[in-house]
């Protein structure tokens, strides 16, 4: 059977097509307070089984990746079971595998990143922890390397993370030695310095040497103090002799993440997470 002229678009096809285009344009024009509930509703209903499937696959993949380690641990545990004193240290050894989790000690939720193939995925992505896990909007999201972003929307079992690459992302920052402070924002989408951040609002008289580690300052109440953001790679610009902007290479690229940690508990204003992150987490 051949495809013939009957397969050309009829008037009904054209009307349906135009209707869908119109709805798409309307969706693009929706304000955030309309768009978020729609997206949230879709994630919690139609997409929920698929996200659960993806999450289970992630868990399975992680389980396979750690299979040898788990087998080794099991053998060690079996051996240790013959020596009662060793059992007392068992929990501590297993906890040490958690790395950052142990250093953070409390107030965090681990989550798998459910990547999507769209080109805009590094700007926002879905993670496998939600309201039931204690995640709240504006919860900071980190990896062992440093700052990843902030939770934008929370569903029952999943959350949407707005990464540092998103044009609307901002964080108050300070140099590791406390000498300079400013606001860190995405550098922009054009030019050779894509996927960089920039430290804005540095007084003109203050120089920031290349290689300086930039941390969250804790101001603003969203991000705790001491989360590595990145390392200064050079001067980005000067604003008429009163302000400098410095380029920062981020600690971690969102596309490289498979797991993140969401800080769920409010930490005191004096708390400093610097010790929780590896000192060499922000590359040389």
């Amino acid at each position, binding site marked *: *059977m*051949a*495809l013939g002229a*009957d*397969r*050309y*678009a*009829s008037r*009904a*096809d*054209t*009307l*349906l*097509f135009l209707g*869908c*285009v119109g709805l*798409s*344009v*309307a*969706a*693009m*024009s*929706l304000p955030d307070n309309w*768009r*978020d509930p729609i*997206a*949230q509703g*879709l*994630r919690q209903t*139609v*997409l929920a089984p*698929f*996200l659960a*499937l*993806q999450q289970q*696959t*992630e868990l399975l*993949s992680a389980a396979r990746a750690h299979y040898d380690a788990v087998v080794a641990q099991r053998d060690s545990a079996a051996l240790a079971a013959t020596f009662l004193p060793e059992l007392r240290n068992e929990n501590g050894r297993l906890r040490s595998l958690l790395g950052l989790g142990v250093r953070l000690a409390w107030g965090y939720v681990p989550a798998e990143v*459910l*990547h*999507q*193939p*769209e*080109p*805009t*995925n590094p*700007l*926002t992505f879905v993670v496998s922890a939600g309201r039931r896990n204690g995640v709240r909007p504006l919860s900071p999201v980190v990896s062992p390397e440093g700052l990843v972003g902030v939770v*934008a*929307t929370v569903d029952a079992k999943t959350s*949407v993370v707005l990464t540092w690459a*998103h*044009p609307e992302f901002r964080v108050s920052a300070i140099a590791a030695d406390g000498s300079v402070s400013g606001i860190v924002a995405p550098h922009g*989408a*054009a*030019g*050779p310095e*894509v*996927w960089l951040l920039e430290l804005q609002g540095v007084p003109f008289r203050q120089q920031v040497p290349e290689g300086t580690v930039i941390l969250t300052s804790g101001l603003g109440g969203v991000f705790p103090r001491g989360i590595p953001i990145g390392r200064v790679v050079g001067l980005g610009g000067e604003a008429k002799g009163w302000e400098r902007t410095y380029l920062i290479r981020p600690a971690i690229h969102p*596309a490289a993440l498979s797991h993140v940690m969401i800080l769920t508990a409010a930490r005191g204003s004096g708390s400093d997470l610097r010790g929780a992150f590896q000192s060499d987490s922000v590359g040389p």
Partner: protein
Amino acid sequence: MRKTDRYRYLLVLVGLVVLHFTVRERLGGDRIAPDFLLLALLIYTIRAQPGRSAAAGFVIGLLRDALTPASFGAGALAHTLVGYLSSWAKAVFFAENVFVNGWLFFAGTWLRNLVVLLASGRLAGAQLGWELLVWSPLQSLTTAAVGIGVLWLFSGWLAIRRGDA
């Protein structure tokens, strides 16, 4: 067309959707791994009328937008356009050859990424260039390769040449 043919056809599409949420992440990075969901749409458009293809594209696009809110609406628009144009092109160009279908998969994936990037307005300059000239062609290539494989394996089930959808 027998009833069992229709079920087999649906089975292939459902299989692609399941693959999208299970094995896709293990086939390379996000930017180059084949897009099984888009492939399911493109295979659906082989048999469906352009209007239904556009509607299917809109639904898939909107669902994907819920997972990537940075470009909400852009995915729906892109998938609508790709669904409609793919179905229309199949009718006009009378594509029977598996490699012509492969080319259609390639073009459909690249066009989807182009529309998402332009409609969302999130990327520009060199970043846009890299996405469109490097990453998107790679993803289109892997998607087309998988698509050709699916058509080759399930040609009997898919019965590509149909006018009754």
